């Protein structure tokens, strides 16, 4: 163990039902450095971050703070050690002023503290200046841009004597100028002795700001070639080396066969389509029986674009064609029933399922129109048949279709979601993040299912942030970045080549 490590994690293992999110991971942090934590989506970064901040407890492994063994049982404890997470605006009270937000920890310490508005403003001013913000302490936070809110967060952390600041994708939704200012501020604060953990997808930033780097892949540490340590000084790495460390594959990689659809008919095409939530015009097409992958980082605008196509957020400009015919998109019901286009949300629990209801009721919820008679009475026999059919076909593991969905595992919940979509018998099926939080075995089953559906002539758009997944299953890959389509690749299903080509498009 090194003497000057402010924080050290040893052999951390974290298991979720069916998934090993972290497998013997080491992580160490020296005082006064900027340490980048990088890895693909699903590599285990967020799990590690949550362990660092006390949200999750590891199943195995030790945590040292200034060489003292500690445990972080909840976020409050992490906070007392001076470990602070800077979220994007999430930790601020929007209706409070900047000063009130920055000093909230101080004046809320005791129930009986009285509030001296003047003093709060004065004290806050110090931290506002420190982070280089040019705003009045009395301004309301809700009036600020995302980038400025983030600086207020940093100021807030500094006011509570933060020793370690954790920035999770800090530049994801702020302007270029704001990002530059932020990096400058990080350098300044580092020189004053603050330690940073910097989680980012943007390699240029990592190279610009980080002193050292830890790379995670499939929940494990990745060592750089020739360096026998997981703690790697950034100057010893080239950009290509880092990309290889991130994407190099360790798990078994079995891709579906190579297919070409360019001579088939086009079932869905968008031409310069844009909407309120997806303001940048985008064009793409999908052929009959094709499995099209939409890749991009979280927040690249894929979900928003899908919601434009299905009429959740109808287009305001551009054209949408289904089977060669121009469609005036009005609402979800129209797209679902008339044009056989169905979207399955990435957010199973919040937008996909009725968790308190049974499997049967969930599956039939999209086809209530089809299983009722003229009086509006439901045909229970038909409902039962449909549910049982999908239980068999999708192999939903449950003693009964009358089981409440909340009691199922993530994988089985996802199967119920899929069944709910399939019950509508869509011709074009948009599936958003089909395998997030799902064990490997079910993941493979879902991949196979999607493939079989395309064999039956259905077209599938699979939105995923999992590089390996997309190269395994997609026939073509459309790459999104910052609300735009950056490019389109024919997937050769050769991992090394494809992963680099996709990364290049994203890093550009």
């Amino acid at each position: 163990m090194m003497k000057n490590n402010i924080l050290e994690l040893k052999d951390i293992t974290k298991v979720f039902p069916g998934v090993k999110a972290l497998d013997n991971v080491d992580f160490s942090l020296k005082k006064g450095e900027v340490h980048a934590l990088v890895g693909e989506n699903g590599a285990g970064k967020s799990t590690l971050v949550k362990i660092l901040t006390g949200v999750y407890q590891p199943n195995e492994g030790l945590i040292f703070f200034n060489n003292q063994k500690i445990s972080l049982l909840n976020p409050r404890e992490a906070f007392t050690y001076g470990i602070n997470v800077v979220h994007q605006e999430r930790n601020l009270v929007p209706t409070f002023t900047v000063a009130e937000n920055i000093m909230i920890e101080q004046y809320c310490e005791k129930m009986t503290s009285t509030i001296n508005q003047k003093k709060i403003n004065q004290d806050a001013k110090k931290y506002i200046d420190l982070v280089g913000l040019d705003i009045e302490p009395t301004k309301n936070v809700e009036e600020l841009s995302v980038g400025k809110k983030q600086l207020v967060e940093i100021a807030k952390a500094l006011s509570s004597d933060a020793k370690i600041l954790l920035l999770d994708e800090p530049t994801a939704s702020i302007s270029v100028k704001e990002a530059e200012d932020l990096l400058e501020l990080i350098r300044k604060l580092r020189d004053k002795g603050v330690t940073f953990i910097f989680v980012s997808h943007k390699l240029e930033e990592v190279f610009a700001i980080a002193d050292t780097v830890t790379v995670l892949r499939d929940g494990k540490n990745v060592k750089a070639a020739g360096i026998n340590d997981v703690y790697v000084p950034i100057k010893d790495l080239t950009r290509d080396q880092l990309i290889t460390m991130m994407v190099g594959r360790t798990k078994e990689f079995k891709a579906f066969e190579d297919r070409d659809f360019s001579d088939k008919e086009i079932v869905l095409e968008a031409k310069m389509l844009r909407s309120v939530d997806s303001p940048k015009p985008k064009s793409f097409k999908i052929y009959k029986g094709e499995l099209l992958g939409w890749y991009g980082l979280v927040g690249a605008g894929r979900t928003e674009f899908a919601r434009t196509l299905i009429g959740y957020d109808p287009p305001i400009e551009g054209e949408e064609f289904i089977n060669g015919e121009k469609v005036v998109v009005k609402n979800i019901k129209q797209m679902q029933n008339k044009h056989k286009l169905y979207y399955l949300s990435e957010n199973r629990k919040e937008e996909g399922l009725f968790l308190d209801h049974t499997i049967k009721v969930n599956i039939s919820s999209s086809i209530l129109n089809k299983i009722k008679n003229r009086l509006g009475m439901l045909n229970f026999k038909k409902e039962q048949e449909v549910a049982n059919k999908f239980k068999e076909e999708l192999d939903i593991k449950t003693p009964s279709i009358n089981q409440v969905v909340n009691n199922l595992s993530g994988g089985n919940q996802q199967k119920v979601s899929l069944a709910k979509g399939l019950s509508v018998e869509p011709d074009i099926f948009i599936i958003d993040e089909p395998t997030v939080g799902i064990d490997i075995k079910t993941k493979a089953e879902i991949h196979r299912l999607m493939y079989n559906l395309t064999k039956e002539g259905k077209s599938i758009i699979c939105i995923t942030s999992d590089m390996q997944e997309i190269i395994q299953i997609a026939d073509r890959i459309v790459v999104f970045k910052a609300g735009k389509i950056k490019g389109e690749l024919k997937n050769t299903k050769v991992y090394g080549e494809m992963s680099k080509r996709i990364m290049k498009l994203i890093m550009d």
Partner: protein
Amino acid sequence: MGVLLSMVVFSIFVGYNSNTFFSVDNFIAVSRICSITVLVGLSQMVVMAGGGLNISVGAIGGLGAVVCGALIKRTGIPWEFAIILGIFIGVLCGAINGFIITKLGGTAEICWLTTLATMAIFTGFSLGITHAKPFYDMPEGYDWIGAYNIFGIFSLMLVIMIIFAVIIWVLFKYTSLGRQILAVGGNQKAAVLSGINVNKVLIFKHIISGVLAASAGILFSTRLGAVNADIGLVWMLFSFAAPLIGGTRMEGGRVNVLGAVLGGVLLALVSNGVVHMRISIFIVEFMEGLIILLAVGLDRLRAIREENLERLERSTI
């Protein structure tokens, strides 16, 4: 189950302390009270099922009765027809509630805020129509509804309530609309993405709620033999209590029609029982409040325990 047990225990307790509690007359009295508490409870339950609270249940009941009374006394149309129009006022009020709520965004918060406002508006109409003076001397047939007992035991009011309860039970158990209301209450976002017309569902559930409330108001006035504007004024408390005691989830998505009926009966027993025990009216309110707290408290505790279990599982596996 707990409701039934409380009912039995409470009845035995009161019966032990009073020699008039277990009598045919008192059975009829309780069944008349409970026909109102149950209808009002169901009216609230329908709105709860789809996510939201209807603060204007009592005001709709009042307005329905007032319009019915005014039509009979001032225009002289047949009372049967006036009742139908009174119930139609429930449809109208519900449609107004539903329409405003959907226009303002359709969330549960919008729902109770809107109905809070319309409560005042509907009550205002009632006062305006009656000039705060009751309508007396209703037609014989009208009073007959509230007074008649089938075989001398079963109050007609009770029978009417049971018919409504069965209809609501069928609605949630067998119909597409009922299922859609529960879906919207269970997860509004998922309902939208499932192609359910959420606005339509919200308007319909308020119309059903309005019909139940107006019917309760009219039924109450047939028993009273008069119509005045303060019918429904004190309904708010038990409109929440009956469904909550019966296991309906306040956030929506889950109802228990039989439970709400039993909840309404329990409330009726309590208000009747305390009279038999010659306890002050203050205690009645006090006990009703306590019952709601208990019902809600137990429901919350269950939810919290489930959540904690889930958290525990997540962190230890």
